[in-house]
Each structure stands twice: as C-alpha cells, then as structure tokens.
C-alpha cells in the first residue's frame, strides 16, 4: 500500500525528465497509473469486507510518527473515487489540454495530487494525515493556478491555498492536542479512547480545531468562497478537485473521526448548524448564476453542506445516507463538470443563457448531461433517487429538529435540482443557434469518460446491489456501525419519503420552467459581494500586506548600524529582564589569583587601544588599534594556558584586520557622517552593553563552578577518543556534530559573500 500511495509522487518525479516525450500524442498512456491503482483497490474489496487491512511502515518511531496505512471500508470508498474519477480525468485531460506547452507539468501536478489524496484517506497516523492534507493543498495550488499568466487564476489559487492551508494548521494542532490526551498519533487508538477525549478539558479545543480543518477544506460557510473562486482552473482540475477528491477530504475527516466524537451534543449541533446553513445558502446562490461552472461550484458547496449536515445528524441512517450521497454526488458532479468542459472547449462560452440546442451536435454529451441531471434530481431509477430517499429517511427519524431538518433538505434539494437541470439539460434543449451549427463533441477521449460516469449514475440506481455489500457495508463497519440491516433499493412502497421526493421533483421542475437563466440575475447577486466572507478575507489579506510593509520599513530598513543597534538593545532588554531580581554577585576575592605585572600591562595596552579606536580620525588606524585589542586578548589566553584558543585567535585577528583593510582601503577619505548626538547615543548603548556583559560575567563567577562536564572530557579524552589534546578531541569527536554544523555554516557564509559580491544583475532584473 505504501507503494500505491507513493506511486503518484514517484510518477510525478519520473515526468520531470521524461515528460517532454510523453506530452505529445502518447499522453493518454499516463492514465495507466490511476487505472492500475483503481484495479489495485478494486481487488482489495473481498479482503476489506472481511476486515480492515492495516499496514505499518516505521518512519519516525521515536515520535510515534509512522507511515501506517489503514484500508477499511471508508478509505476504500474514497480511494476508489480518487482513482476511478482520476482515470477518467487523466484520459479526458490528454485531449482537453492537447498540445498545451505545460501538459507534462499538469500531469505531474495531477499525479502529485492523486498521491497526496490517497495518502490522506489511507493514513492511520494523525501526523502523516496532516502531511498529506497539506500536500493536497499545495498540489491543488499548482492545479488551480495552472493558467499562471492570468492574474485572477493566480489570485484564486492563492486564496484556496491560504484558506485550506490555514485549516491544515488547525489539523496539526488538533493532532498534537489529541496526542496530549491519548498519548498516541494513531487514529485507531484515538477512536477507541472516545470517552477519554470527550471527558477531557480540551475536548472543545479539539473539536474546534477539527472543524477548522474540515470546514476550510470542504468549503463550509463562511469558508466556502475559495471553491467558486477555484473555478478559474482548467475544467479537468475542477472535476477532480470538486467532485471526488479535495473538497471531500474534509468530509472524510469528519466521517473518520465521527466515532470518537459522536454523542457529544456540541459536535452534532455544530455540524447540523454549519452544514444546514451551507447547503441552503449555496443552493440559493445557484439560482442567481449563469456561468455553468459557477452553478456547479455552488451546487458542490451545497452538496458538501448536505454531507456535513448528515454527519451532524449522526444516526446510523444518516451515516448510511451520507455514504451513499457521497458516491451519488461524486458520479453526477464529475459528469457535469466534464460535460461543461466539453461545451466550453467547443463553444467557448459557459453561460447558460447563451447555450441551447446542443443535443443536435453533441448527442453523447447531451445523454451524459441528462443522466447526470436525473441522478442529481433524484428521479427514479437513477442512483440519486436512492440517495435522496435515504437522506429524507434519515432526517425524519433524527433527534435534532426533524421538521426543520426535513424542510431545509427539501428546499435545498429543490434548488439543487434546478441547478442540475440548468447545467445538465438547458444547454441541450431548444433550438440550435446558427453559430453553433459546426460544433462537435470532439474526440471520444472527451465524451467517453463523461458517458461512463453518467452511465454509472443509472446502473448503480438499477442495481444497487453492486455497491451495498461490497462498499457501503464495510464503510458502515468502519464508522463503528455493526450489523446494520442494509438494504439499498429503488422502491420502498408508498410512504412519506416518496411523497417528499415527489414534492421535491415537482417543485424543482416548476422552478426550472419558471426561472430562465439570465446575466442580470447574476449581476444582482454580485452587488452583495462586498458583504461576503470573501471580501472580509481579502480585506484581512490587504491589511496584513500593509502591516508587513510598514513593519519591514521599520525593522528591516537596510542600515547595518540600525540592525546592530536593535540587536544590542533587544539583547540588553532580554538579559536585563533575566537578571532582574536574581542577580546576587557574591565573589570571594580571596579565591582569585593575584594580578601579575604582565596582566596589568596588557590591560593598559588594551584600554589605550580602545580609546585610540574610538577617537582616531582614520579608519585604518582604528582597524589597526582593534587588532591590538585582539592580540592583547590572545596574550591573556596564553597566560591562562589556553594555547589552542590563543593560536586560533591570533590567526582570526590577523585575517580580520586584513579583511577590514581590503574593504576600507578603497573607501573615500574618512568623513564624519553622524552628528555628535548619534555618537553619544551609540556610546551609551555600547557602554551599557559592555557593562551588562561584565555584570553577567560577574554573575557567572559567583555561581558554583560545575566541572562535571570538563572533568568527564579530560578523563575520557584518551580512553574513548585516543587523543591527548582535550580541546581538539572535543572539537572532532565529543562534539563533532557541532563542528560539522559549524563548518557547514561557514560554507554558507562564504557562498553568501560570493553571491553578494559576484552577482551582477542585468539592468532589467534590478528593482528600481
């Protein structure tokens, strides 16, 4: 299973050198990867029906982070959707973006995304779940912003990334808190300690963070806005991300963790509220849209709302309805998106008000659209009918406001039916405008995948037995629902649910025939845009931008002297705060050695050199005087028997002086640039910092000397490291790791100098 997950990443890597060859007419061959994965997961079904497959791969066992994968019923449904719809999208893309310069790159991103999604739904570890979660955000950023020359496309990619990335951080935080409670990152462990989590004082925090992750990813109100924005992406991306994968990740998370949280009122009622609000709000929005993709985007948000709502209801029936609707939605929404792409590809418009009669030129597409619209509307004998039945069943038998729930669901479904018919039917009926006479459905690579998905909408409706025992039942078990008398069928007899379905269909069709699509209505809605969460989010973004430019101007202003000043002042404040109140210099002067003549002499030399440095009128003299200070220090090291240190210091001081001379030699004659006030200020800061370091040294002296470490080193230098020079043994053996990092830092510094000095930008590359 590890290989299955990683294959997407490996394949993407493989496309870097070989993509150029494959992006021509052979690009359809790339669909082999999702197809193979689909078959791989398909043949796992018999095993999964028996029991979940758990595969453990150690990664960072010390931290409990492992690439553990758990293939149970729930993961299997998602994995099949990801790879199945993925196959269709891969085939479709090979023609849709035929001849695109960056087709290989696009397939690379798709592979990355598919791998990340598979990892997400298979992860058994909260941290790897988070990793794959973020990888889907990042790869979807590339996919949404694929038309990177279009500013609007870049912007919506950035918005999608920031919203879903924010949610990802919530997920990480949730994982850490859960680890704090259960002492394990394993999801299975977590689900088993549900009471432990629910009784913990951090329970609310966990739920909030999980919501933060799921609602941003699955575009729940008020984070829904990134999804309609992400329609700037090429249609295959929209199909893949919004029907079966990315946006379903949040739903997956809620499904997956629901056994741990079910029973908590907060969990159920919040999901009920948010899901309910989202489904009604987004379905309402579809009434005002004219752009096909925009209609589909809002109806997707609405469908996700229904799923969250059902998880919120939380009964066994609701979970079943949720699982079935998940599949229903994936199938018909993918079909509708692919269909939209074909229309857009041929007619170069996606506005419903401009499209009509297309059945005469692209019959297979029209059939696909019609089947998808049927399933979306829940008209028998489509698969959607079964889904809708189950949803109404669940909402009528729930403990949370059954009447309000049912009314909300019926009205949402009425509007969704309208949206589905608008997208799947409207472009194909009516007279064919003359300008569309020459349109064609295009290559079978476009309409065959569309038709396959559409046919599945019908086939599963006619034969629900195909999925009931193989997919749905194991998924219910994964959700902790054992021994459920599962029976999926079209005909349940005359009952309230059937009446509700009939009402929905009647009202929806009425709405469809009454309300004609028009651009005006869309404009009406756009007027309210400035009060939307999107506007708020963008405002927040520009505020951050303004603040950061202000802050950069203040702190990172490019003057070295200011940097040093800030660093010194900050250090002083920090050290001063640390020493405040617990500074008790207590030095036993009788313990110290007497001052010798040499030392006094050197101190005098140092002091006079410092005075000389400060007051001299020439840079070179100042540098030379600094060198004198350094050499005097070396002498002190020699007196106190630290020959290694002294030697190094000698060499370093020599080189420093040489460097200074090299730089300063070329500068113009010394001029006083700063006025006396600045100098006094600098002097005070310098004296203050020096004084602080002195106090610190005194403070250290007054503490008892801990000699354990140095004794260990001197005792074991020869025994363990076969060296007699303890200093060097520490450098190359005991603390060799430090040295390794230090020389690496040195190299980085040298490369930095080299880059800064040698880099000669062409004039057009320069800022200003």
């Amino acid at each position, binding site marked *: 299973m590890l290989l299955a997950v990683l294959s997407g990443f490996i394949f993407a890597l493989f496309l870097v050198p070989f993509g150029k060859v494959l992006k021509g007419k052979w690009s359809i061959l790339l669909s082999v990867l999702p197809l193979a994965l689909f078959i791989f997961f398909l043949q796992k079904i018999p095993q999964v029906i028996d029991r979940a497959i758990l595969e453990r791969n150690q990664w960072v066992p010390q931290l409990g982070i492992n690439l553990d994968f758990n293939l149970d019923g729930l993961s299997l449904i998602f994995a099949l959707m990801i790879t199945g719809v993925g196959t269709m999208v891969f085939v479709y893309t090979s023609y849709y973006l035929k001849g695109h310069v960056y087709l290989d790159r696009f397939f690379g991103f798709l592979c990355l995304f598919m791998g990340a999604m598979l990892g997400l739904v298979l992860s058994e570890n909260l941290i790897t779940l988070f990793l794959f979660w973020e990888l889907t955000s990042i790869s979807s950023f590339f996919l949404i912003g694929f038309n990177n020359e279009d500013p609007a496309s870049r912007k919506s990619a950035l918005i999608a990334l920031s919203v879903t990335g924010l949610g990802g951080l919530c997920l990480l935080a949730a994982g850490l808190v859960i680890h704090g409670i259960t002492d394990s990152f394993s999801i299975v462990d977590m689900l088993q300690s549900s009471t432990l989590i629910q009784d913990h004082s951090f329970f609310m925090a966990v739920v909030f963070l999980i919501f933060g992750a799921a609602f941003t990813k699955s575009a729940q109100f008020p984070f829904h806005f990134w999804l309609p924005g992400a329609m700037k992406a090429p249609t295959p991306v929209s199909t893949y991300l919004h029907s079966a994968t990315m946006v379903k990740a949040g739903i997956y998370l809620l499904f997956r963790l629901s056994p741990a949280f079910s029973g908590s009122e907060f969990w159920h009622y919040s999901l009920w509220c948010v899901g309910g609000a989202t489904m009604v709000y987004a379905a309402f929005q579809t009434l005002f849209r004219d752009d096909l993709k925009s209609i589909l985007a809002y109806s997707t948000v609405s469908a996700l709302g229904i799923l969250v709502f059902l998880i919120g209801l939380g009964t066994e029936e609701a979970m079943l309805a949720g699982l079935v609707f998940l599949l229903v939605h994936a199938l018909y929404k993918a079909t509708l998106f692919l269909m939209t792409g074909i229309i857009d590809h041929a007619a170069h418009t996606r506005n419903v008000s401009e499209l009509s009669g297309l059945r005469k030129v692209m019959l297979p597409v029209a059939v696909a659209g019609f089947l998808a619209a049927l399933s979306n509307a829940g008209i028998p004998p489509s698969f959607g009918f079964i889904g809708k039945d189950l949803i109404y069943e669940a909402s009528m038998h729930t403990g949370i406001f059954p009447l309000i729930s049912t009314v909300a669901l019926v009205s949402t479904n009425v509007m969704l039916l309208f949206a589905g018919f608008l997208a799947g039917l409207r472009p194909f009926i009516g007279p064919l405008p003359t300008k569309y006479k020459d349109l064609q459905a295009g290559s079978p690579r476009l309409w065959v995948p569309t038709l396959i998905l559409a046919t599945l909408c019908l086939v599963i409706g006619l034969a629900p037995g195909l999925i009931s025992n193989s997919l749905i039942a194991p998924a219910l078990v994964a959700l902790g629902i054992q021994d459920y008398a599962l029976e999926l069928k079209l005909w349940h007899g005359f009952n309230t649910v059937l009446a509700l379905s009939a009402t929905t269909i009647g009202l929806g069709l009425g709405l469809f025939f009454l309300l004609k699509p028009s651009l005006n209505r869309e404009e009406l809605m756009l007027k309210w845009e400035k009060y939307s969460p999107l506007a708020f989010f963008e405002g927040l973004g520009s505020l951050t931008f303004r603040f950061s430019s202000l802050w950069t101007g203040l702190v990172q202003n490019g003057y070295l002297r200011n940097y040093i000043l800030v660093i010194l002042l900050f250090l002083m404040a920090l050290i001063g705060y640390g020493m405040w109140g617990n500074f008790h210099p207590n030095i036993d002067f009788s313990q110290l050695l007497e001052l010798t003549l040499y030392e006094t002499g050197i101190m005098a030399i140092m002091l006079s050199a410092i005075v000389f440095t400060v007051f001299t009128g020439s840079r070179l003299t100042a540098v030379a005087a600094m060198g004198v200070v350094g050499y005097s220090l070396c002498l002190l090291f020699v007196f106190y028997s630290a*020959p*290694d240190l002294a*030697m*190094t210091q000698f*060499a*370093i001081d*020599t*080189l420093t002086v*040489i*460097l200074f001379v*090299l*730089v300063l*030699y*070329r500068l113009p004659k010394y001029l006083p640039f700063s006025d006396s006030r600045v100098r006094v200020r600098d002097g005070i800061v310098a004296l203050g910092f020096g004084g602080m370091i002195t106090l610190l040294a005194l403070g250290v002296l007054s503490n008892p000397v801990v000699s354990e470490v140095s004794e260990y080193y001197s005792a074991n230098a020869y025994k*363990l*490291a*076969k*060296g*007699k*020079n303890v*200093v*060097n*043994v520490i*450098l*190359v*053996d005991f603390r*060799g*790791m430090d*040295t*390794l990092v230090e*020389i*690496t830092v*040195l*190299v980085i*510094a*040298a*490369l930095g*100098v*080299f880059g800064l*000095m*040698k880099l000669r930008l062409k004039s057009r590359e320069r800022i200003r």
Partner: protein
Amino acid sequence: MKTLILRTASNYLLPLLLLFSVFILLRGHYLPGGGFIGGLIASIAFVLHAFANGLENTKSLLSTHPGFLMPVGLTLAVISGLAPGIFGLPFMTGLWYDEAIPVIGMIGSALFFDIGVYLVVIGVTLTIIFTISESA
C-alpha cells in the same frame, strides 16, 4: 605592497607556512593545534603571497578556485562521520587503526574529519577574502 623583499620572502614562506599548517593539523590530536587553526594558517600563507605578488599570481598558482575546497572538505567530514555506519556503529563514532603510521601517527576517522575541517576553513577564508578584494 610589491616590495622586492616581501615578494622574495613570500615565495619561500608559502611552502614553509603550508608545511607548518599541515604540521599543526596533524599534531592537533595530542598537542595544541588542529584542523581549524591549521586551515587558518594555510589561508594566511596564501593571503601573504597575494599581498606580495598580487591576487592574480596567487590565483594562477592555485589553478582552481579555492571555493572548490569547501564541498570537498564538507564531503570528507560527512563521509568520515558516516564511515562507522559500515560497521553498524552510530554516526560519528571514532574509528582507529591499531598501528601507528610513521610521520603521521595514529590514523582514525577523527583525522579525516579534521582534514575536512582544514579544507573547509581554507576554502571559506580564501573565497571570502579573494571575492572581497576582487570586488572592492
């Protein structure tokens, strides 16, 4: 600073100082010295040569850019750290050959690590000083 005396002296000093730096490097394990200080001394030898004969002459003497010593040294240090892994020992465990080699003394992974440090220090110092003096 192209005085005849300094120039003549530096031609003799360069090999002497380089030899001295290697001496310092090798004695490091038992007596004051080591890779870091050895590298600094070697760099000073080249800098002195550059002062006396001009940067161009020193560079032509070196034939390759001193910057190449950086990756070489780093790789050597890392390899000497990884080498114990062959024997199943943790990263950077000291390995020693039992017999002493004439002139050099005991051979062990720490020595190679120190040589790596030595090369990196020369590379870094000379890169910085050469770059700055070329651009100044």
